């Protein structure tokens, strides 16, 4: 849970507010370091949505902090307009059912679905 006066949580709040779609992942969108992170990058790319990738491997405090921030024990984690959407399974399912495209549209986020 988000804790006040936790500097890592403050930083994460800032990161998730920084762009409409933010993905906390292992590695970078160009060079993902984990299959699950790569799968989410693939979904976002397929939807043609611009997103910011945050590499948790670059900072151990971030890697631990993101888990308590969202009360979610695994990475990747996708945020849309500051709200936690889910990890790899959830993002993939929501892509397949069309819910992810709908969610992005609801928030006025541009996609270029092929």
């Amino acid at each position, binding site marked *: 849970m988000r804790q006040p006066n936790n500097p890592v949580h403050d930083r994460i709040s800032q990161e998730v507010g920084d762009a409409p779609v933010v993905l906390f992942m292992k590695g970078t969108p160009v060079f993902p370091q984990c299959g699950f992170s790569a799968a989410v990058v693939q979904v976002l790319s397929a939807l043609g949505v611009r997103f910011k990738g945050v590499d948790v491997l670059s900072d151990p405090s971030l890697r631990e902090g993101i888990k308590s921030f969202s009360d979610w024990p695994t990475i990747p984690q996708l945020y849309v307009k500051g709200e936690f959407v889910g*990890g790899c399974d959830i993002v993939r399912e*929501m892509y397949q059912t069309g819910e992810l495209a709908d969610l992005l549209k609801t928030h006025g986020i541009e996609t270029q679905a092929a």
Partner: protein
Amino acid sequence: MGRVADGMMAKLRARFQPSRLELIDESARHAGHAGARPDGESHFHLIIVAEAFRGLGRVARQRLVHTCLAEDLAGPVHALSMETRAPEEAY
């Protein structure tokens, strides 16, 4: 099934009384990756059908499983992908 998987299955059965429960050890597919251990039991896929999931969204369902398996996820289990369904959604 190994020791870690047996423990996870027992906790899931006790917590959810699932009508379907499958835990697949996919560690071999992740051999050599970060978090993989030489003795396996690091990467799992879970299929679980239980009443407890009825009416809950995807995030809430997975959180129930995370809570049930918190010790394992903080310990030997590096990755757990899952399909969580209420009985009427089962296939």
